[in-house]
């Protein structure tokens, strides 16, 4: 019996973490909807899709790094640096083209990611500390060389503003006009591409192998350096892509924003079931993790709680999820007489 490769996608079993997150999301939505029926509207959905697009792309980059057994905290810096470089270049050369913006930004992001990989591999250093260093170095370098002048809607390249306002579907209602953002197909493309790389190519298998056990992977003949180079360059390229989306969504170019939110995004991916020890993590889990964060960020208002409650809610959910995930692991390990902390 011949099975199509896509059969596996629909027949796959959800991980425990995915089910648990789905339960949280559904429960939360029911509570919010009971409290405030206004929540159930196409408008809310379109709004969340628009504001969540950039974060989703970054989260995919984080996921692939976590799967490879590392942790990257420089991706927000890379996003801002490559986006800002691209905008500066467009203004300097007078090229007002959205494709050019994406191209420059992605190339710069890719390069910065590759530098991360080089340092990590060459000196065999902990990824967290390296990327902590490169994040300040990249951002500081950008600020020193290019400055930190922000560009309001009028001063930034027109193509970026136009791109950010492009809608796929427009719905007019008595509350106003709102549309489905053009970012959505980009996000879907990124998700499909990453899924394909991770689960349908040798490269993806190698990323999982390196994350699970670098020593075994290298003995299998996997080129560790090439795999890591791909992982960090890909994550950098996604950050570059997100940089342009971010600026065109806000219609405001501010090179000192975004940096500082990286731990929040990593937390969202971790909630989705990716493990810091590498080799584990799913795209569906990552999507659910981001949905949880976005839900808290945009809907606590519907519950009558101010935005001050965001962090408290998210922190609590994060700790409880981590607790459930790792406590189960602990019990399992103790049963098998494994005492090592991974």
């Amino acid at each position, binding site marked *: 019996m011949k099975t199509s490769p896509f059969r596996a996608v629909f027949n796959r079993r959800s991980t425990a973490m995915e089910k648990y997150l789905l339960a949280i999301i559904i429960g939360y939505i029911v509570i919010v909807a009971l409290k405030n029926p206004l929540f159930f509207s196409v408008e809310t959905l379109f709004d969340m899709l628009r504001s969540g697009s950039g974060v989703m792309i970054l989260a995919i980059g984080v996921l692939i790094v976590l799967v490879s057994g590392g942790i990257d905290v420089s991706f927000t810096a890379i996003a801002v640096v490559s986006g800002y470089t691209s905008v500066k270049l467009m203004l300097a050369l007078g090229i007002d083209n959205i494709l050019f913006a994406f191209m420059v930004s992605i190339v710069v992001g890719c390069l910065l990611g590759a530098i991360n990989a080089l340092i990590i591999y060459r000196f065999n250093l902990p990824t967290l500390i390296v990327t902590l*260093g490169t994040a*300040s170095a990249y951002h500081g370098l950008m600020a020193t060389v290019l400055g930190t002048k922000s560009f309001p809607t009028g001063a930034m390249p027109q193509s970026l503003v136009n791109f950010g306002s492009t809608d796929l579907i427009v719905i007019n209602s008595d509350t106003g006009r709102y549309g489905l953002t053009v970012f959505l197909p980009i996000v879907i493309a990124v998700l499909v591409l990453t899924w394909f790389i991770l689960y349908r190519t040798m490269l993806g298998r190698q990323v999982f192998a390196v994350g699970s056990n670098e020593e075994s992977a290298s003995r299998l003949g996997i080129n560790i350096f090439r795999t890591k180079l791909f992982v960090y360059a890909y994550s950098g390229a996604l950050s570059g892509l997100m940089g342009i989306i971010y600026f065109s969504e806000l219609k405001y170019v501010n090179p000192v924003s975004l940096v500082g939110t990286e731990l929040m995004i990593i937390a969202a991916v971790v909630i989705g079931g990716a493990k810091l020890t590498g080799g584990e993590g799913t795209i569906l889990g990552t999507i659910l993790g981001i949905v949880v964060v976005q839900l808290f960020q945009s809907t606590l208002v519907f519950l009558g709680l101010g935005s001050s409650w*965001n962090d408290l809610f998210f922190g609590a959910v994060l700790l409880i999820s981590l607790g459930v995930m790792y406590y189960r692991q602990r019990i399992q390990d103790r049963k098998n007489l494994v005492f090592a902390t991974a």
Partner: protein
Amino acid sequence: MNSIARLVARDKNLSVLLVMTAVTLIVLITLLGGRFLSAGNLQSMSSQVSEFGFLALAMGLAMLTAGIDLSIVSAAVLSGIVGATVMSGQLVPITASNSNTLMLVGILAALVTGMLCGLLNGLLIAKVSIPPILATLGTMILFTGIGMVITNGQSVPIAISSYSALGAATVANIPIIFLLMVAAFLVVGFMLRRTRFGRRIYLFGENDVALRFSGVRNDRVIILTYVSIGLLVGLAAVIMVSRVNSARVGFGESYLLQAILVVVLAGFNPYGGRGRVVSVALGLILLQSLQSAFTILQFNPYVKNLIWGSMLLLVMVVNYYVARWNPRGAAPAKGPGTTTVIPPESAPSAAAETHRSPDAVSTGGRAL
């Protein structure tokens, strides 16, 4: 010559750090002269370094156990907010008669909050087995969240005027808070070098499974370590609040990167088991001198970021080469600061040899 090489090889990281600090100080003094060495600058340097010193020490303790504590700054801010709320007169109106008692209660509240934050981290790591980086990432967000809910993002001012005087008070021109930090370094240094608990912190970082099977209650070591971190964080909060005379969410966020920078600069191994309090002190001197020099030279904060980031990378690369450098005739290193490591390549063969040796097999047989 030989004896110098031996001395250097005893603790390579410390030697490198010592040279780096000396060179930096000489360069800064020649470049800036009186502006750097003035009593005013030295005094402001020593009071600035104090609050940060506690946080760096706390990060160092976490790294000795092969962990990391991302929550130190947000825990310090939360402790500061709790302390400041007590001293703000919002809970109990402040009168001339109760201001001293309230001040004490405020300080105690900050310290206890810090320790409770540490206890939560310790429990999550030791009893629930969440990796330290994730546990403290979660508590970092949680503590910030609690602080936000208490203050609504507003700053909490302190209504007791004598409290801010405490932050500025000096003994023989040395700020009291600086002396407090020196005392903390001495106590932690003594604890790590001379007590059973300190020894266990190092051993846990080296090999926690071996420590467990030596009959040590691992969980207790970790919980106690994180409670100590919490106490240091609480002290940092007390000083922070007295210097700024208020507390608010978001204060001192840049300290997290800098704390990691100092500790890595001091030669702490992020995988645990290596690092000395003396080196943290040296790292602090280096960082603070650069910090003041940047202020005197009026660098903007982004240039500072660039320099901190590049320094962090540079230090790790230098450490990488230093670890491979082995001067001829140097005695094998001793002590937890510089234990010799078996290179990963040779480890499997060494293990295989042990297995082949008849002694090992027979003892193994007897044990079973």
